[in-house]
């Protein structure tokens, strides 16, 4: 299977809304062994000036990887998930993610580079918070929350 070079520049619009819940923040924080009270105790988060529990700095990976799945599962992309290795990751936070946020992610394919028999694919997920009651496709009034970028290496045969 070969990677489709025409993927570069492709975008996938925001598809589904991710509702950030308090218990999910606590569960994710425990899973990365975070102990800061702002992840667990609403009063502690409010004392720091946040409206609700604060998500750990890598929490956005949940939303980012859901968006990435659109590309990986796109039959036109030619990506074999069992040969995917995560090469790098970055999160730029425009504002903290807090419980109660309704998030959507737009996926952009920024780079496709052949490497041996495989390819390095760089994707960017622009994550926004929707106003109350808005649907996933709403662009009006949504607030930029985070920009996630990642590179995945799709290993070729024998790599």
């Amino acid at each position, binding site marked *: 299977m070969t990677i489709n070079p025409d993927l570069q520049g492709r975008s996938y619009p925001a598809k589904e809304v991710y509702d950030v819940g308090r218990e999910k923040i606590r569960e994710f924080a425990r899973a990365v062994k975070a102990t800061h009270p702002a992840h667990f105790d609403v009063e502690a988060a409010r004392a720091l000036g946040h409206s609700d529990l604060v998500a750990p700095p890598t929490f956005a990976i949940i939303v980012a990887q*859901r968006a990435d799945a659109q590309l990986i599962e796109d039959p036109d992309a030619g990506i074999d998930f069992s040969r995917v290795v995560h090469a790098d*990751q970055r999160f730029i936070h425009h504002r903290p993610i807090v419980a109660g946020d309704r998030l959507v992610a737009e996926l952009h394919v920024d780079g496709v580079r052949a490497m041996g028999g495989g390819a390095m694919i760089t994707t960017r997920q622009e994550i926004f918070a929707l106003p109350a009651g808005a649907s996933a496709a709403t662009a009006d009034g949504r607030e930029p929350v985070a920009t996630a970028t990642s590179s995945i290496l799709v290993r070729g045969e024998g790599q």
Partner: protein
Amino acid sequence: MTPTLSDLAVGQDIGSRSIDVTRTDLVKYAGASGDFNPIHWNEAFATGVGLPGVIAHGMFTMGSAVQLVSDWAGDPAAVVDFQTRFTKPVPVSDTTGTADAGAVVEVSGAIGAIDADKGTARVDLTVTCAGQKVLMKAQAVVRLA
């Protein structure tokens, strides 16, 4: 006490942390993150694709390493930019039924740069397992008063 930008100097140590990792931790991370790639929980599958055994999610290592920075800064929301490259896998032995760790990840941090205009400091993290660097260019930019 919360650090302030004016008190920091490049090269200053922010501390260190040792993280015990078990196979159970990887199952918990898989569930919490939604990343169910079997290389993180199934030995036969992992060795079948040429790995030494079950390895930790890169995002588990990245996510657990940053807590040193969150705790030092006094607010996890102070981390406004966080990036890394994944250079070496973290193999996690099966120690199920014992009190032993399957791997130990060592994290330490130092101030790499200060940007007074932006009100930020960059913390450079050194993250190793069994003496090998597993993350490269692990940098967290923190907004401080």
